[in-house]
Each structure stands twice: as C-alpha cells, then as structure tokens.
C-alpha cells in the first residue's frame, strides 16, 4: 500500500518535472514556446477561399477552405455534416463526404459514416494566412 503510494508519488513528480522541462525546451519554428497562446499566428483569422485549396498528393485530406469556429464536433453533433453529408451536400452545394469514409477498418461498407471518420478535423484542417515555415516539396496536383 505505502510502496504503491510512494511509486505513484514518484511517477507523478516525474511526469510533472518532465512536463515543465519539455514545455520550456520545445520551441516552435516561429521562436515561441509551443504552448505560447500569444503567438500572433494562432490568432490569425481563418481563410475563406472559394473553390478550395489544391491537394499536394493523391488521397491527401482536402484542407478546409472556410472558418469552422461556429461548428462543433462532439457527442451530440457533427456540424460539418450539416452541409457535407449524403443528404445535404446537394442543397448546400458542398463537397460530399468521400465514399472511403463509409468503410470500416476491414473495408466493409457501412450505411452510416464510419465512427473512425467522425472527427473530421483529425485530418482536415482549416488554414490561416500565416507564412509557411517549411517549404512544401509536394507538387501541386
């Protein structure tokens, strides 16, 4: 019991220490700590680009060409599906969720969006007008 407690104490201390050390050491390419929320690039407005961004390679998840801060993806709702679902994409004049998003991990077709594809922003990201810090070596397709 007490050994377990001591181990837990050590473990917690180690995690805390390493956490602070990492946060202090790791710097983003913009010269801030990665956790620095005052980084002006973080507060830039999201771009709205009619027609969307090009993709760099085949099967790249397309980037989101509009602000998404008013939509939420949670247990209740997936705000993206309001326009991008099978039933609504035509009315909304929006790209439809790709067929691949209806396959489970064994490649079996489901009649609903696969749960593993539910969190759109895991792969699809909105863009700001920040200057790229690393050159894109993929050719535009």
């Amino acid at each position, binding site marked *: 019991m007490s050994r377990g407690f001591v181990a837990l104490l050590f473990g917690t201390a180690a995690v805390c220490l390493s956490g602070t050390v990492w946060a202090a050491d790791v710097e983003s390419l913009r010269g801030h700590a990665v956790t620095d929320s005052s980084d002006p690039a973080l507060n830039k407005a999201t771009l*709205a680009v*009619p027609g969307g961004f090009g993709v760099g390679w085949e099967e790249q998840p397309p980037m989101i060409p*509009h*602000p998404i801060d*008013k939509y939420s993806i949670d*247990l*209740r*709702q*997936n*705000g993206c*599906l*309001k326009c991008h*679902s*099978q*039933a*609504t994409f035509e*009315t*909304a*004049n929006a790209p439809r969720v790709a067929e691949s998003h209806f396959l489970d991990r064994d490649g079996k077709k489901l009649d609903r969006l696969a749960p593993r594809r539910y969190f759109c922003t895991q792969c699809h990201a909105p863009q700001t007008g920040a200057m790229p810090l690393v050159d894109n070596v993929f050719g535009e397709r």
Partner: protein
Amino acid sequence: MSEQNNTSKPKSSRGRRAAWISLFAAFVVGILFWGGFNTAMEATNQEQFCISCHEMKVNVYQEYRDTIHYTNRTGVRATCPDCHVPKDWVHKFVRKVQATSELYHHFKGDVDTPEKFEANRFRLAQNVWTAMKETDSRECRNCHEFDSMDYTKQESRSSQGHQDAEDAGLTCIDCHKGIAHQLPMEYDPEQDVPGKSVFYTKRD
C-alpha cells in the same frame, strides 16, 4: 324662477366639476395601472429574471454563454428575451400569457435537473423551432433582416446561402438551429435539409 336658476347653476357646475375630477382620477389611475403593468411585464423580460430560475441557469444559460450572442467582438448582446419574447406589445402579451404554463411546470419541477431537462430537450427544442418557423423567425429579424444584409461583405458561402434562402422563401431557423443552445441528441443534420426538415412538429 331666477332663484331656481341661480341655485341649480352652481349645482350643475359642481356636478360637472366632480365628473371632471373623477375622469382625471380615472386617467391618473389608468396611467399608474398601465405603467405598473408594463413595468412588471418588463421586469420579467430581463436576463436576470430568466436565470433566477434554476432550470434556466444551469442548463440553457450555461450553453448560451459559449456563443456569439453572449460575447463577441463589438459587445452587442442578444439576451434571453431578445430571441424568446416578441418585441411588439400584442405578441409579447400573448407570449407572457403562454408563459404561465412554464410557471406551472417550474413549480412542479418537471425539468429541474440536467437529466430531466435532457429527457425533454428534443420536445422543447421542437416547440421553439416550430414557433420560429411559424413566425418567420420574427425575433431573429428584430436584428437580422435579409433587406439589410450586404451580401458583398459576407463570406462567399454565407452570401450564396442567404440569397438562395431568400429566393426559396426560407426563414432563419431553417438553417440556424442550435446557435445559442446545444442541439438535442435526436437532432440529425441529415434530416434537417432546409425546406425538407422533419423537425417541425405540431406544438403541444
């Protein structure tokens, strides 16, 4: 004869004065009553009054605090009554009379826990959506009017969407559900295609 006239004259003028005084008194009482009534009604039209009820404060008010109608760049707010109580007197009065049923359910404790509220959220939300559909989103339009929108200043998606909606005769709530409160679990965006929504019900 002349004496009678002399005596009846002051009498009738006294009677007339009494009539004027009572008319004036009725006028003053009327103003006081009307002013008092409206003041009392306005007092129930404050955010502070709304969240003096536990079920409003712990459920819908908390959700609303995360939205653009609570906090935004310019500090212009829309509080509970701005969206949920009509501005003009007749509709406001009708809504306030309907609200007596809400008092009944408040004292009965029908939605006084988050669990009970959640169990009723779908039904309650549909009531509000249906009401807004029927009034052509009247309360939204107190501030947001198609005629006053500068489509060139909107993002391309919003601009196109608003113009299409205007042409199709749609109303705000057709697309903008759940902007100030969480949507019910039962809400499925795929069944809410603008103009073909299944979520407008007969109000109960």
